[in-house]
């Protein structure tokens, strides 16, 4: 899954894989077949690349019925089998009974499913989805996302999906790739990228709230843990010896690793990085309540956390209340401070000049590398 803000190059990357956009340099191979290579002067037309593409606007043929839209794509199937196969595909995306409708007579969600069925019709080696859920309402989106998650288990092919919706990425992706201004910043399983961003920029792009600056105090390989200083606190963190003693670092803690201290009865876990602050934002969101506090009352050090709403009520949380929290050492992740992004990229094994995307599932893989232009 490719994730990035508008203009980061997600769609261009997808179009390059499909052969709709010609990169200046690089190579695209899929399952051993070279689709594009500037050195070997190979550039296959989209027709000769084994792809299924779902466009953001779906790109359905408006003058053809849903069935004909799918049938048109079944050029490789014997003509007497096409009708049955097209009906099968439409059934796979739950569109039985709507085969004869034209796109204009289908709802947004139904159009999206038709586009998906059509994309699957070529039995592609890779399925490319360009913000497939952006044009439907919230309720339909959740439903289609669940269906895709399910469909993914039935399909034996890699899926590359472009999105700027992080929840979508977290829900659907095996691996996500964060793009920014045409560069790959980080790639990995969503939990890892979200919990351990390589740089403050990635942390910002994946919308992690709690990013702060601190200094390395010392490493304790025997414990093992690393100590950092921050706002007069000394915090224990996961052992991360790659940072030099005394170096400035950015650190991040995902909201779920910030634990509230019970006000009535202290407990054992509270010795772990205790921090005090004043609640400045208190937003109930149903089951959970989003709480933001200014640590030591400092405006520049806002820390967010999620508290179960019943816990928040029992502890009498509210705007202006003083609270104590623990920062779980294992959840504190260190990053080079903002100015040193490039060295971090190299450390992370991502070459500054080229980037590659591999997507492995069901035995086929798509890789692409491109020199920055």
């Amino acid at each position, binding site marked *: 899954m490719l994730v990035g803000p508008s203009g980061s190059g997600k769609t261009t990357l997808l*179009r390059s894989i*499909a*052969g*709709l956009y010609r990169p200046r340099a690089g190579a695209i191979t899929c399952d051993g077949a070279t689709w594009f290579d500037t050195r070997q002067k190979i550039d296959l*037309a*989209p*027709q000769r690349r084994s*792809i*299924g*593409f779902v*466009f*953001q*606007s*779906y*790109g*359905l*043929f*408006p*003058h053809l019925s849903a069935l004909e839209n799918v049938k*048109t*794509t079944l*050029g*490789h199937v014997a003509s007497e089998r096409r009708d049955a196969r097209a009906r099968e595909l439409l059934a796979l995306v739950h569109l039985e009974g709507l085969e004869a409708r034209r796109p*204009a007579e289908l709802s947004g969600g139904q159009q999206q499913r038709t*586009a998906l069925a*059509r*994309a699957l*019709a*070529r039995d592609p080696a890779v399925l490319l989805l360009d913000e497939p859920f952006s044009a439907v309402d919230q309720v339909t989106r959740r439903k289609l996302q669940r269906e895709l998650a399910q469909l993914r288990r039935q399909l034996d092919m890699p899926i590359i999906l472009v999105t700027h919706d992080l929840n979508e990425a977290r829900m659907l992706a095996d691996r996500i790739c964060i793009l920014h201004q045409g560069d790959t910043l980080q790639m990995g399983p969503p939990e890892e990228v979200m919990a351990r961003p390589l740089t403050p920029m990635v942390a910002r792009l994946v919308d992690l709230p709690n990013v702060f600056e601190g200094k390395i105090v010392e490493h304790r390989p025997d414990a093992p843990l690393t100590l950092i200083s921050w706002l007069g606190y000394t915090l224990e963190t996961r052992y991360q010896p790659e940072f030099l003693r005394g170096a400035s670092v950015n650190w991040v803690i995902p909201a779920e690793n910030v634990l509230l201290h019970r006000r009535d009865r202290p407990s054992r876990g509270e010795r772990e990085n205790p921090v005090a602050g004043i609640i400045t934002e208190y937003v109930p969101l149903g089951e959970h309540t989003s709480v933001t506090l200014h640590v030591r009352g400092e405006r520049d050090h806002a820390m967010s956390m999620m508290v179960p709403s019943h816990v928040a009520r029992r502890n009498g949380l509210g705007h202006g209340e003083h609270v104590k929290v623990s920062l779980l050492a294992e959840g504190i992740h260190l990053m080079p401070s903002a100015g040193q992004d490039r060295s971090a990229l190299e450390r992370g094994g991502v070459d500054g000049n080229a980037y590659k995307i591999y997507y492995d599932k069901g035995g086929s893989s798509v890789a692409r590398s491109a020199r920055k232009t």
Partner: protein
Amino acid sequence: MDWSAFALSLKLAAWTAAILVPIGIVLGRVLAWRYFKGKSLIEALLALPLVLPPTVLGFYLLNAMGGNSAIGRLYQSLLGDSLVFTFSGLVVASVVFNLPFAIQPMQRGFEAIPDDIRDAAACCGLSRWRIFTRIELPLAWPGILSAVILTFAHTLGEFGVVLMVGGSIPDETKTIAIAIYDRVQAFDPANAGLMSAVLLGFSFVSIAFVYLLSNRGRRRHA
């Protein structure tokens, strides 16, 4: 009522429209989607017949196709006939004169096809020819039909170019517009009026048909 002049006009209009369909599709499609150096210049050149007085265009065509011109001599040596003051000459002039009426509606028709649909067709594995016949032509169809009807109706009523290039030879170059002019010159208002009325009715019906089509096309894909 000069029926042979009316028949000649219909024949000229049919030939013009038939020749302009492939030319218009090719040029309209290129102009709709391609960007190249000098595109504006070419579009301006193709639109010239819209603004030039037909007599000016007719004058240049007469010179370009006359017995002393390269084109005229080539035609003469190949087919043993003259291009001016003949029906074939009229067809050539009429095609040139109607270029904008054929190309522009078709260009609009192709422009109206979203890029995503063409990209999707390529990603669906359709060959370029299949994309053209199965996707582009049906979607650009209202534009193509408009072009045909406009060209046809416009040729029926053409006067200036026909007069300059064809003269007024019965059954060869005497079209209905020329015949009307003849009747007026001969102080025969009854026949001139009758033929004018036929031309008026015919033109109205065809233009109305163009609007009907374009409105229907817009509704269908809305």
